[in-house]
């Protein structure tokens, strides 16, 4: 091969065929209207969370007010309306805290922790599951029996037990508890995938080229295990936000600050206002934000399931 030709090919390589493949995936996803809608909503949520990180200035005064306990006096909270500025669109909750900025701050907290939980859970689960599926034998037996233990207790009960055992006193403790609970799902999914993939001839071909077992696991099995995991991951984003909020709502632990912006916590606070003075908006709006996110994430996950399989999508 002459060098000019080689250079030409090198230039061609810069077209990034993998990127093109992702673009193609997105295009397919766009064709599924519901999934696209879900995707857009999820993106908006994440954009808000990122904005909270990048430029928290617009929230800061409200947040300071909320974290210091609002007005600390029992005034009747304002109802939803446009007349009092953007922060008061959804009205006020206990101690005259404006709900909208409260929710926006909570999205940041919730999404950060959720991504962290699902991400670490998936990482632990996929690595353990793929390895145990590939090697089999005693390792597989042990890992799978451990996951059985986790599956034998209802998620929420187990979460409460772990939080109690950890003597949780911060949101981070809930995060640890949920990671412990969440990895077995991924371990099972990826183990099942690995079991069927390890007998694929391309794994054998790579062994015949001198690839070690661990290299097979990380180079050949994991990328192929990942598509069902991605689906599960997107669905879990919704359920983890829900469970996280539920745990805070149940109020099993002593939070350092009772007014921590977290959707479940906002609903707890709003609930007392609702029973006291009939402030329905204090429960409804944070609830709607939670609900929309869970729905959107589920729609996206369903769409991903159809799109991610390279064989199905042609």
């Amino acid at each position, binding site marked *: 091969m002459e060098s000019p030709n080689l250079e030409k090919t090198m230039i061609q390589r810069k077209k990034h065929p*993998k990127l093109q493949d992702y673009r193609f995936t997105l295009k397919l996803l766009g064709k599924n209207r519901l999934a696209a809608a879900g995707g857009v909503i999820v993106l908006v949520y994440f954009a808000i969370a990122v904005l909270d990180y990048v430029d928290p200035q617009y929230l800061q005064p409200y947040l300071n007010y909320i974290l210091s306990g609002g007005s600390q006096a029992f005034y009747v909270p304002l109802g939803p309306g446009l007349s009092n500025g953007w922060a008061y669109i959804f009205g006020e909750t206990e101690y005259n805290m404006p709900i909208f900025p409260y929710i926006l701050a909570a999205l940041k907290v919730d999404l950060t922790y959720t991504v962290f939980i699902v991400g670490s859970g998936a990482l632990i689960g996929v690595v353990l599951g793929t390895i145990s599926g590939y090697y089999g034998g005693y390792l597989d037996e042990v890992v799978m029996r451990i996951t059985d233990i986790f599956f034998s207790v209802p998620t929420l009960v187990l979460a409460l037990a772990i939080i109690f055992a950890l003597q949780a006193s911060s949101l981070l403790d809930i995060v640890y508890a949920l990671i412990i609970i969440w990895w077995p799902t991924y371990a099972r999914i990826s183990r099942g995938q690995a079991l069927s993939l390890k007998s694929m*001839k391309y794994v054998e071909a790579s062994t*015949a080229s*001198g690839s070690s077992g661990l290299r097979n696991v990380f180079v050949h099995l994991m990328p192929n295990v990942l598509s069902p995991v991605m689906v599960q991951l997107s669905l879990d984003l919704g359920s983890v936000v829900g469970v996280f909020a539920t745990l805070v709502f149940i109020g099993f632990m002593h939070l350092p600050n009772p007014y921590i912006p977290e959707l479940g916590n906002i609903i707890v606070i709003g609930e007392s206002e609702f029973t006291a003075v009939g402030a329905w908006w204090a429960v409804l709006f944070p609830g709607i934000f939670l609900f929309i996110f869970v729905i959107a994430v589920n729609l996206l996950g369903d769409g991903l399931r159809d799109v991610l399989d390279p064989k199905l999508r042609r």
Partner: protein
Amino acid sequence: MSDNNEKRNIVLYVSHIKKYFDISSGLKKSKGKVRALDDVTFSLYEGETIGVVGETGCGKTTLGRSLLRLIEPTAGDVYVNLPQEIMNSIINLEQRLNEIVDQDNVSKEDKNEQIKEVLKELGPLRKKYSLTKIHKREMKEYRKLMQPVFQDPYSSLDPRMLVKDIIAEPMKLLTKMSSQEIFKRTLDIIQEIGLSEDHLYRFPHEFSGGQRQRIGIARSLVIDPKVLVLDEPTSALDVSVQAQILNLMRSIQQERNISFIFISHHLSVIRMMADKVAVMYLGKAVEIAETNALFTKMLHPYTRALLSAIPIPDPKTKINRIILEGEIPSPSNPPNGCHFHPRCPVAMKNCGWSAQDLAQPIREMLDPFRNPESESFPRIIRIVTDNDENKIEIDFEDILSEPQESVRAINNLIQKESRLKGGIKFLAIDKVEAISADKIVITFIKYDVPKLKEVSKGHFVSCLIYEDTGQVKRDEVPNAEILA
């Protein structure tokens, strides 16, 4: 061709390779063994193709996988691409060892003494050169020399990798080439196998079956191996594409002087591709011969039956099909002696008939509902087969009135049965004895185990009817006309 063979180098020598799979249940190991591959020996010259044929489950694929050490062989040795003097001396030693083990008329101590002597020389060589003995870390050197091509082009390419990465993988793992060199080599090889460079930037699912198989071939060729193990490389493809792929492989072989192990159950493909053919049955090679010799002068009755199944595209031609009865036996409990004897149309009495084959026929012989002549016998309670001592015990419900008379009657029945079609197995009965008033024991003659022997030059067959002389023992073989 056999004349040039003296000058050509032997690139691969496989000696008595075996693979037994454990039958395990749960955590408890080993309830038995499946003898997927049971003692196969062959050699392969540079640039030569050996075809491996046999029906499903005969161990063809296991052979290929064991050679590549994708599964660990239970026993046996594989030598590949050694300097010719070393290869020759190893082959000599292995053959001498084999001769010693096969000797019949030597005492056990003498045998062990001789074996020890040979092993003194052979042992270190095995440890150093045999692919089955060397450490896994050292395998890398040999993986460069032997590469597989798989049957199913749909599962043999990683769906998440670009073609260029798939082809580059062996080079990345086995050589120290720079990424520039690797890329250049990838480019060369993709053109050599008839695709173009923009195919490099696609995923496997964007190709047709034939193109995928070409990519698979490119991957195995890219590090210039000496031996390719082709495991049914065309059976998943359309017939028109098959021909293209076969032609491609032929031209590759001619250009690069690679040896092929061509595993297939497609006999016409084997006839076109292979220089010599190994026919396998139940984990054993039953006949190894040059292709022409095999297709014109097949010796083993199984080969005969197999080749008679090749369809001839002419409705007027009459084919003398040999239709084998029964099914292929389970490799976890293979028949004694020659594995093929229960289905063999020309089996002799010493081919391996034993208690496990005869329990059922004897029961039927003594059942008055099937055989009116056995009316005089009481009902049978049970028939116990003793495979270790190779005998059958028959328990009767009542005592036999006159044991000696009954024994004679049974002997008569056996004689009668042995004259019927398929009655050869009854000739394997040595004697019938009455050991108590209601118990009869039937013992069998000693059966022989066939060994792969060179009958004529380069033509190996493992069949007792050619034993000793290399000619059909016409007086002992029933239905000898089949072999004409």
